[in-house]
């Protein structure tokens, strides 16, 4: 049911764990199935320098979290904000239809983390 890329990200998840001295943290969860994800960002000069995640959920939830961390590293916050859950699924080469709605949360966590960052460091600008 999962393609090779999804299985690879599940098996060898990238950027796992809590990021020491993260500048921002974003959380999200699915009320429906109970999946939860926490994303940590280290930002320098508006660029995502480092990123890590922690996820409770199924194989798709773990793989999409891992995929997202690869996609955002080195991106500006503006570029990162444009990434959608669908982009993450596409980058993984697709997810089973049922998983698209319940386990594909990574971009939401990213957006929350960026909001957290802006509220801390760019409060005046985004107001």
């Amino acid at each position, binding site marked *: 049911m*999962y393609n090779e890329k999804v*299985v690879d990200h*599940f*098996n060898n*998840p990238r950027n*796992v*764990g809590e990021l020491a001295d993260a500048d921002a943290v974003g*959380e999200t969860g699915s009320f*429906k*199935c*109970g*999946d*939860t*994800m*926490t994303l940590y960002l280290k930002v320098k000069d508006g660029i995502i320098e480092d990123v890590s*995640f*922690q*996820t*409770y*959920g*199924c*194989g*798709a*939830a*773990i793989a999409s979290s891992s995929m997202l961390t690869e996609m955002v590293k080195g991106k500006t916050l503006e570029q990162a904000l444009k990434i959608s859950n669908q982009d993450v699924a596409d980058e993984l080469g697709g997810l089973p239809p*049922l*998983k698209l709605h*319940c*386990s594909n949360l990574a971009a939401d966590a990213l957006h929350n983390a960026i909001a957290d960052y802006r509220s801390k460091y760019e409060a005046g600008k985004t107001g």
Partner: protein
Amino acid sequence: MSDRQVYMDHGATTPVREEVLEAMLPFLREQYGNPSSVHAKGRAVRSAVENAREKTALALGANTEEIYFTSGGTESNNIALRGAAKKQKKPGHIITSVVEHHAVLDVCRDLEKEGHRVTYLPVDSSGLLDPAAVEKAITPETFIISIMAANNEIGTLQPVGEIGAIAAGHNILFHTDAVQVTGQLPVDVKKLQVDLLSLSAHKFNGPKGVGALYRRKGVKIDPLYRGGGQERKLRPGTENVPGIIGLSRALELSVEEIPRKTKTLQSLRDRLIRGLLKIDDVVLNGHPEKRLPGNVNVSFKYIEGESILLGLDMQGIAASSGSACSSGSLDPSHVLSAIGLDHHTAHGSIRFTMGWGNSEADLDYVLDKVPGVVEKLRLISPMGKSV
């Protein structure tokens, strides 16, 4: 992927044994006659089908004419419940439990839409039903009680004998879904005082797509289909002859082996439970003793079942889960919810079901691999607490 494959999902289905396949093959080759035909080719097959019926009856302590072949457990359950309901002149009352298989629960829900009233009895935290609650739920309108012999997820064995006695005392039909228990533990329809019993061949190393319904002589139910009158009109349609032959051979073999097999499976089961409980934050689901010989169901806290299954699959281990994410629905198993598990504990459940072919060496392998799979996922989980 691992080179080694360990199959611990016998509750889902089992491999067909060589002896069973051998018995079936002639009926997929030269013995192709229709058992209803008058000619020699038909008569030979008729005699084989009736011989299979006799063997099946013998394995259950039933009379030959009380066995009806069907397409499996789901059809047997449907014929029993819907067939009994069709016999009612006006809407009546059904007693069942909240932990039944969907092949009973969803039939009951359908019958509710048709005007019947259904009582879904609760179970305790080990999945056990209280027979006194069954008796208390009886009303003058109750026409059937349907309680499974063993739960397919957590393996809890229900006191079907006691419930049978209660039903008999009140002159109410008693049906049991014995799909998980048949071929695993002794089933005697007279001792259990059941009127209707469902079984499925692929759960005891027989082929898929064939099952049987035991109907005690004199019990009146209406058929769901009309047709050529096969299976004494209760289940018309040309018989699945190879399947029927396979079912009876598989049942014969598995029942014969019960005394030896039960002990072996129980010892494997208890060793697996002990081994898994050594991992931090693991709970056993279901009853510690009153459970199917090969059934182990545990919840690993802080991690989710589908990801555990995937991790186990990478190691070549086949198991199943009550997690929503593995079932295709969004809710965790109704059985795990019924025994009071919170969402996260239910989501982290894994069922290992051992059976014919599993060995101590398989168990060594599983016990060696599970801690690593669990630890890896707990390191990813934001709920923290690694092993």
